[in-house]
């Protein structure tokens, strides 16, 4: 069950992040689409005080959601919601960490996937050696790689 859920989650993540920019504020799709949200970054004044977020706390569930949370019970669904959002927003840093075999984004990713600490080195190594098949349009491979790693971890 856990494996199936993960596979679904990862497929959703990578499919949603088929390298295309989305119009959503604060979320990027694909590799590194954090945009300036129309801020005049050339103006020195815009650096003076970060006038940023258009998201106020609440209606958009903190900006964690890429859609609406249709479930009343936090838990797995929220977990996956977080995973989706995290991977989309950190796609390029995650890719870099995976290629280098370590990094903060990778640690957070493993934690969201609930990979136990003692299994992480193997998980990271598997991801690193399968980089080319992870970061292609072959989304299924991502699911399989992670699924296999999680299977190894259990």
């Amino acid at each position, binding site marked *: 069950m856990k494996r199936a859920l993960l596979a679904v989650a990862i497929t959703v993540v990578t499919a949603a992040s088929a*390298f295309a*920019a989305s119009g959503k504020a*604060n979320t990027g799709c*694909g*590799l*590194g*689409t*954090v945009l300036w949200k*129309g*801020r*005049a*970054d050339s*103006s*020195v*004044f*815009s*650096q*003076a*005080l*970060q*006038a*940023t*977020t*258009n*998201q*106020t*706390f*609440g209606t958009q*569930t*903190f*900006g*964690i959601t890429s859609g609406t*949370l249709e479930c*009343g019970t*936090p838990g797995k669904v*929220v977990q996956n919601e*977080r995973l989706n959002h*995290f991977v989309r*927003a*950190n796609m390029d840093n995650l*890719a*870099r960490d*995976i*290629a*280098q*075999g*370590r*990094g*903060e*984004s990778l*640690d*957070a990713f493993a*934690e*969201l996937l609930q990979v136990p600490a003692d299994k992480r080195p193997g998980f*990271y190594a598997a991801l*690193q*050696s399968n*980089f*080319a098949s992870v*970061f292609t349009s072959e989304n299924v491979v991502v699911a399989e790689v992670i699924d296999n790693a999680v299977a190894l971890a259990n």
Partner: protein
Amino acid sequence: MPMLYCPFRKSYDAMGVHPLLIWLLVLIVNLAAFAGVCAGADDPYLAELLNRAAERQLHRERAWEVLLHYRPRGDERESLVDDPRFFLAPEGKTDPEAELSATLRSLFSSEASGDEHPRCRFPARAAWLAEELAIDAGHLPPMACPQLDEALAAVNPRSAVLVFPAAHPNGPASMFGHTLLRVGSTYRSDLLSYAVNYASHTTDTNGIVYAFKGIFGGYSGYYSILPYYEKVREYNDLEHRDVWEYPLTLAPDEVRRMVLHIWELRGIASDYYFFDENCSFNLLFLLEAARPELRLAEEFWDRSSFWVMPADTVAVIGRAGLIEKQAYRPAQATRILRRASLLPPDARHEALQTALSPQRAQAVAASSRPVEERRQILNLAAEYVQYRYSRKELEQPEFQRQFLEVLKVRSPLGPDESDAGEVPVPPAPETGHLPGRIGLGGGYRHDTPFVEASIRPAYHALMDADEGYSPHSQIIFAEAVGRYYPERHSIRLQRFSAVDIVSLAPRDEFFKPISWKVNGGLFRRPFADGADRLFLRLNTGGGMAWPVPGNGVAYGMAELDLNLSDRLRDKAVLGAGVSAGVIVSPADCWKVALSGSAFAYGLQYHEYYRLALEQNLALSRTLGLGLTASWERSFDRSRAEALLMVNRYF
């Protein structure tokens, strides 16, 4: 649009909502609240609670004043929150007692339900009242707050961290930095916690409009909560600002109380002022909500300071005993510099070339270099590709292609053996000198002795110790320098710098920033009649700077100079010139600078030259010794000067 006089301040709205509509809405909300207030007045249990609250003068309790952001002024109370939706009593902004009674009544109201009910809207107030008055939950109407519960489950508040993104190295305008809070949960990774941010809500892209409105409260500030990784990306990866984190010694229940209070501030607007009622100042309320006995904001009310700087708030929070340690999160540009510094020059060059044309990555991987060096070249190349994208030097499809090309070649080489990506922790912002400076000293000008006194409210001069500040940058506000010449018994204003900003950004293979300066104020120099005259000067310039050994920098600039004075034949002259200099730091506490400039002025044609050798010895965080020898030539008259100053920072 007709000009409307509103009894409350107009809230700036990006949607362009007509103020009248807002006003109507406010009226409806207030009426609804009022109706709710009247609804439960005949409940005997509620009447008893209201009596007890009145007897105990609950509205004078510190916790209540904190939750409503009341600012005490003698016996008067006024809330700093400008949004009427924050109050349940119509006069709540200025009447803590009425607001408390209205809040108590609203808890028993059956007007609204679910997330809109005051119990769900103001959970921190409700919790505090329930605790203080030992309210029996059985008497309250049953209530579910799904949105609040969901938010609390997602944030899962356990700990809090003060986050301080430092100034942008080449953007002194960001010198104020920013502060936000991070709310830690049971996740181990910091990236997975939430950030609490207070920021003005603006769509203005015109810098002048932005600054003007920001200074005069034309924007509304809002609190928001968002994933911390988004903020990390914004500061570290997009703006290339280092981030400092200060874990706070707040207990989980205190942090939970704080989050409940943030919930109360959802979508509530306060007028945002860049200098005082800004991000830093407003976060202090949140910490007070966590622990009401803290008195943080008062520090700023009591000293009538013109601005509240993030570094100041860090100090205030530190003095309250909330900070025990700190962490450092280097910006991507900082990491790139570090990685580059660890590679031999040819490997560094190879990394740069690979980032610019990623098809070279294969050749790097297949080269005869040691494997760790190959890894590090590709690591650096990958980060530099990201940097170029953040600077918009690459379009997105191009970025993805190049980035993946480098990473695909990097991954088969296995994990790093070294910690090249780990940046040594620099001195933290709060370890630097204090921003104010007062100086006393003396010297000789052209064989005439004088005594000099100076005062500078803020912030950092090129010659001040760089520890804790962006190196090679200067931001001075409202510095006044006066002199007394005993021989002539004359006291005179020597200089007044309204603003004086210099940003020297060293260039290297990877980064090519422009150095620049802008300043304006009153200056003194010899005029045609031979006397040192005061005149108004506006000066700006741009150029380049390069690193020199000893943490130093060498620079050159082209400048424009506008001088205005009644003593000038045409009242004004415009000049053009060049300046150059070198600043080195032979030891941590010692700085030496040699600078020269030459100008030629049109209209009443004349030339101006200046040479200066300056030294500064930092004796401690609060004490410095400055020694300056200079020579200037203006209207064919030369003046040499020597000056020794003792500076105290405050």
